[in-house]
């Protein structure tokens, strides 16, 4: 199947006559059928859990695939309030937004320093930050935990934000350095002639010009932190400070699990992301691609 691709690449620009004829080749039917099947595997599970989330525990056990007998939002209401998902969503939002803002600012500052400032250690600094991309979060879990516990940062949102910011830095620096290096030299020269200082050049000229980069890194950090489970699970024990992924496990009791509410919780956890994704999907996908290619 892959062999057919260069043809399309060639015909695509001048393919107007061909597509007007609406001649459908068998091979493209096969491709479409295949792609539709693939997409079904993506949508069906989500629909299934959506369906189940309206059922009672008993219905789930007896008829997991049937439509719910009646549509009620009890499961959702329960998960939202009693399951603390409301406050968990708020916590996730706080942690992710703060981490996003901080890591973008700090990261792009460092990226600017590396890409634009002239100093001997800039290459070395870049390598230093880039090694961070290879380091799994698990390796620092224990020392961070004991350290944070010692200075009273465990079980606080700040204790989550700090590592989140730090672990977002390498990718931010990586992508933003690419963007800053790509800016024309004349721009900075010009601004310099007009009497702008270096911080004005950075905040007023370079940052706005790298909006795409900011968007991409911001998204990546936000999504990554929004879904992060391990750190949040280890660091946070207070119900009122738990983030969304951690709260999902609340419905597992000592001797029984509250299935219907757990399904509602799963939906609550993924619906905001799906909505945001649907609203911006093209921008997100293109942005992420742009970022990846830059790197």
């Amino acid at each position, binding site marked *: 199947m892959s062999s057919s691709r260069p043809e399309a*690449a060639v015909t695509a620009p001048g393919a107007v006559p061909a597509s007007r004829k609406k001649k459908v080749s068998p091979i493209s039917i096969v491709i479409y059928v*295949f792609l539709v099947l693939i*997409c079904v595997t993506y949508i069906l599970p989500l629909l299934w859990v959506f369906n189940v989330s309206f059922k009672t525990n008993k219905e789930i056990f007896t008829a997991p695939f049937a439509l719910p007998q009646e549509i009620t939002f009890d499961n959702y209401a329960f998960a939202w309030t009693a399951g603390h998902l409301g406050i968990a969503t708020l916590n996730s939002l706080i942690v992710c937004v703060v981490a996003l803002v901080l890591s973008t600012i700090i990261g792009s500052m460092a990226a600017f320093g590396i890409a634009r400032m002239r100093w001997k250690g800039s290459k070395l600094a870049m390598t230093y930050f880039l090694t961070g991309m290879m*380091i799994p979060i698990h390796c620092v879990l224990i020392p961070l935990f004991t350290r944070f516990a010692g200075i009273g940062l465990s079980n606080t949102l700040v204790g989550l934000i700090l590592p989140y910011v730090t672990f977002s830095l390498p990718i931010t620096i990586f992508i933003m350095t690419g963007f800053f290096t790509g800016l024309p030299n004349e721009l900075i020269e010009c601004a310099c002639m007009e009497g702008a200082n*270096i*911080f004005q050049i950075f905040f007023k000229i370079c940052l706005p010009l790298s909006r795409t980069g900011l968007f991409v890194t911001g998204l990546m950090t936000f999504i990554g932190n929004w879904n992060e*489970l391990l750190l949040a699970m280890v660091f946070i024990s207070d119900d009122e400070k738990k983030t969304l992924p951690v709260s999902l496990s609340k419905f597992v009791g000592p001797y029984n699990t509250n299935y219907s509410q757990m399904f509602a919780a799963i939906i609550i956890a993924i619906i905001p992301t799906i909505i945001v994704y649907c609203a911006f999907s093209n921008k997100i996908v293109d942005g992420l691609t742009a970022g990846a290619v830059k790197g």
Partner: protein
Amino acid sequence: MDKMLRNKVSILIFMLPAFLLFTFVLFIPIVQSVYYSFCEYKGMTDPVFIGFDNYTALFSDKTFGIAFKNSMFFLVFSCVSQLLMGLLYAVLLTNIKAGRNIFKNIIYLPCVLSSAALGLLWMFIFSPKLGINQLLEGMGIEDPPLWLMDTKGFITLPMWIIAFVALWQYVGQSMMLYMAQISGINKSLYEASYIDGCTKFKTFRYITLPLIRPMVATALSLNAIGSLKFFDLIFNMTEGGPNHKTEVLATHLYQQGFKYFKYGYASAIGVILLILCLLVTLFINKVVKTEQYEM
């Protein structure tokens, strides 16, 4: 201007926040982690240096053996499968004329969703009483497999399932990277190759593949590190069970560190994980990324 860009104070201001965070939240903890790995450290008492004992203990730890094997399996599987499927999807999608964005967005969607939530979802889908087994039995298939509880074979069935779920979730990432790279290839290259009489397959082999090679390296390193860090899905689907058969390094580390509070031992697992990540990245970049082609 040169003077401004060489100003030590401004360089310091740009670099310092990132440097401090990085050093204190990432670098020093790693050094600490390496030290702990040579210690008997049970959490409630201070670490005591014991040399290589933790590392020798790793060799006789059966669960570590399983975890290591599974992590390696996972690494190879996800690199190969994501490379093949990612390329396949990318090639197909750059080939079709209508609906490209829809397919692309659907396939990419799970990448932005919480793997904790998706893990729970798939756990239920594969559980004997609720999910697909009910469907299979409805279709008259007797004794459908116990997807997540089977323990036969070198790589157990649950491990394959988890690997496929991971492929399902993350293949969009690789696909996007390859698509971006393919659509960046200059169309005239293909036209030239057709004029020269190349077959479609040859064009793919000699033009597309070499030109996306750098991206293959990037995507592979991302996959490799991602699969070594892999935690959320397994934690929510099987928690390493049955009988530790689906344990990977990250889950074993979590269990030893935070369930049984063997900080020293868990740190040793973390150090192994770190070394693996570094080795794999180096290896991929050495083997795959040879030279950059001009596009």
